[in-house]
């Protein structure tokens, strides 16, 4: 019996849904729910994490990420402008910095700042843990953001710079007042994605040897995990990360949808 292509697609989709449903049902029946709940969602342990998981761990993650992102954004903008400069040495320096921090794992950068800096130059990063996170994580972010921002600046139509110059603005004034603000609008979605990545990378500060007061989500979760020998703290920590990253993801998707509509 011949089926129309449409009918065949329908049947095929129906079969796929059926298989998925079957898998879910089997898992539900086979799984030992009591064990899973006690290992992953122990209410008592969960309540025990309060309120520090929010007041210390989540707060510190937000603080480290925000500081690193802000620093990275400023350095990233500077690197982007240097990359576009007509002065050769600026371009070469920026390219070197960008390639270095993009090519080296964030973990290595952290170790370099924490342990390498004192050995190499006899100096410690000022500002303690926050200072080190801001600069180390910030530079990693800056290297990525610089390329994004540069692309954004180049995506602003040439006529904008020309109009600004024809009104008597200097090149740098036109960049600051006219081109860069428009570039940031263009690159807001990728910059927000970078913020999501930085949020997760902020977990690398555990390398710095954190006290209880300076622990962020991951360190907090690991400590609690060791203490309770139970997976519940990790579930709590994962939930906290999602609390930050999911709204950001939604914001990105909204911005992209709006940009799509505007075109």
């Amino acid at each position: 019996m011949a089926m129309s292509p449409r009918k065949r697609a329908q049947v095929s989709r129906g079969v796929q849904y059926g298989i998925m449903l079957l898998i879910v049902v089997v898992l539900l029946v086979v799984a030992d729910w009591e064990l899973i709940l006690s290992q992953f969602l122990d209410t008592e342990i969960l309540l025990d994490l309060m309120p520090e998981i929010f007041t210390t761990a989540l707060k510190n993650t937000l603080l480290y990420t925000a500081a690193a992102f802000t620093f990275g954004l400023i350095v990233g903008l500077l690197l982007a402008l240097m990359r576009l400069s007509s002065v050769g040495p600026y371009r070469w320096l920026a390219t070197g910095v960008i390639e270095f921090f993009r090519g080296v794992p964030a973990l290595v950068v952290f170790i370099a700042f924490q342990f390498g800096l004192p050995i190499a130059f006899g100096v410690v990063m000022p500002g303690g843990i926050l200072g080190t996170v801001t600069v180390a994580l910030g530079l990693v972010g800056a290297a990525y953001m610089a390329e994004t921002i540069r692309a954004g600046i180049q995506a602003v139509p040439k006529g904008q710079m020309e109009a600004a110059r024809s009104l008597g603005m200097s090149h740098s004034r036109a960049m600051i007042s006219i081109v860069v603000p428009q570039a940031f609008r263009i690159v807001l979605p990728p910059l927000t994605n970078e913020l999501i990545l930085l949020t997760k990378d902020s977990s690398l500060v555990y390398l710095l040897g954190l006290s209880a007061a300076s622990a962020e989500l991951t360190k907090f979760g690991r400590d609690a995990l060791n203490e309770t020998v139970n997976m519940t703290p990790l579930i709590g920590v994962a939930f906290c990360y999602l609390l930050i990253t999911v709204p950001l993801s939604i914001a990105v998707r909204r911005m992209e949808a709006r940009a799509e509509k505007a075109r």
Partner: protein
Amino acid sequence: MTEPEMRRDAPAIDVNELHKYFGDNEVLKGIDFHVNNGEVVCVVGPSGSGKSTLLRCVNLLEQPTSGTIFVEGVEITDPDINVDKVRSKIGMVFQQFNLFPHLSVMRNLTIAQQRVKKRGKEESVDIARRNLAKVGLAEKEDAFPAHLSGGQMQRVAIARALSMEPDMMLFDEPTSALDPELVGDVLGVMKELAHEGMTMMVVTHEMGFAREVGDKLVFMDGGVILEEGDPAAVLADPQHERTRSFLSKVL
């Protein structure tokens, strides 16, 4: 860097033996071109003949390869000149408007006044309002460019240039990107400007405007000026075959 001393009694624009290459491509092949104070000079010619390039050389958006350009007695082709200062005296209107889309209409008109002319907020807003009223868009000061029609955008662009109180205005095909029914509004504003005595260099295909408002018509082809003169005379009795064939296509 030398500060330009511009003089209103010198010719507004004085271009001598101007050559411009883009790579190996010679786009302007020895142009002599003059605009006196208060004159309206229209530049016409086929696409690719170098009209925009000539106009853009006058405020150094393009760097001339050789030749000299004087603006109000100042040699702007002198490499030491303060270009920004010269440009703030020359208003420019683009085919694609080039309004700043991230700024309101009012801010489009005040930002350069404040950043370049160092005018205070109140003064710059007053001047902006006056110029918006002049182009018939007083009620649009809070709008953003994206919410304006093409004709409105171009009138805002003219008001933006006027807010710098320039000595002269350059127009590069200001109505070519507009729907036909919106062309009249923009030409009307330009006509009014001309009547007020503004010095204007206008690249255009609007022969009616050139005849009615222009003091001089310049016909360019292949990087040279083929003929120039009184607009009515050139349009009625073109001397060159190429002028004739161009005019027969646009009229």
